[in-house]
């Protein structure tokens, strides 16, 4: 961002707090950004409260979680057959898994601090890593970091199924 000498005084005029004192007198009050910062100041100062755990549990119970059919996905294709070789020698590879007729391809890329896993969720499925949801983009693609290949196992869920995709260091080939 280019240096903007007026920026700090415009922010000071909007925020009107202890960080602003020195700049208040220089504020250019006709700058169009001032109205934006004032609106942001109101939102920044909107005090946020969390509901109690009991209230949250009670709200969640309005729609209980279904019993899903858990299915271990089978490894049916990919660029590196030997599980043991994946972490030892490869910098990138891909694996294709199949469960209940649904296929998912994952790509694994080694980086300086571990691995990056990239995939695309099948239509209607959500992706979970260690029980936490993984965000999908508008094309249902997702990516997440994994310190080791042992941390790359995920699950794919729709309302009736949970497909368990094993970590890349464990998955062994099955004939489809």
């Amino acid at each position, binding site marked *: 961002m280019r240096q903007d000498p007026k920026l700090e005084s415009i922010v000071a005029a909007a925020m009107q707090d202890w*960080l602003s004192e020195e700049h208040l007198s220089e504020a250019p009050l006709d700058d169009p950004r001032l109205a934006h910062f004032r609106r*942001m100041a109101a939102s*920044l100062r909107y005090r946020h*409260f*969390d509901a109690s755990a009991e209230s*949250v549990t009670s709200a969640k119970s309005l729609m209980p979680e279904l019993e899903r059919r858990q299915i271990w996905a089978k490894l049916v294709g990919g660029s590196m057959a030997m599980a043991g070789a994946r972490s030892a020698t490869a910098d990138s590879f891909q694996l294709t898994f199949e469960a209940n007729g649904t296929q998912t391809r994952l790509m694994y890329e080694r980086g300086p601090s571990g691995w990056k896993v990239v995939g695309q969720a099948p239509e209607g499925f959500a992706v979970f890593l260690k029980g936490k949801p993984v965000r*999908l983009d508008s094309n249902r693609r997702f990516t997440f970091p994994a310190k080791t290949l042992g941390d790359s196992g995920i699950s794919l869920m729709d309302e009736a199924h949970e497909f368990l995709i094993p970590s890349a260091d464990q998955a062994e080939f099955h004939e489809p």
Partner: protein
Amino acid sequence: MLRETSEGDLSRLLARCRKGDGRAWSELVDRFQGYVYSIPRRMGLAEDDCADIFQATFIALHRSLDKIGSAASLPKWIGVTASREALRIRRLRNRDPQRETEGSDDRGLDEILADEEKSAEALAIEACDARTLRLAMSQLGDRCAKLLTALYLEDESAYQEISLRLGIPVGAIGPTRARCLEKLRRSLEEEGFFV
């Protein structure tokens, strides 16, 4: 982009809730619990009333999942519902039997409800703005997200403590804040926040 990562995600979540996916519903409750609860708490209502308003809002949402037009309208729908309920409770709590008997309140019930509806809209917009800003903040770079969170979203900390914790010299907090807020402003402007 805020919309792509957050609201596209919300659209899928809403679709899954409509299919009866309890896990998706849990995620929705987690996402909006603070948003809903903050509305009556900020109005100064008692905690018991806030808890009742919280439940009433999610019950209404559960019943209306198929009627909500789109994920984009979901935050405002939830905000208006919570605000309406909070204003209704506040009206009931403020009712003064003495005044009612003497008939000194000139406004009819229709007018009171119309005023409440306008207030509910305004409260919902305020809550939506704050939510949008928090989401945008979470997508700033780590340094800016941490600084703005420390300055505005946490309980007040002395600037020396913020300086030590974040490794920013005290004299640099002001200029860094300005740059981070400008970054946030540009992100919000791209999303149409100021329109």
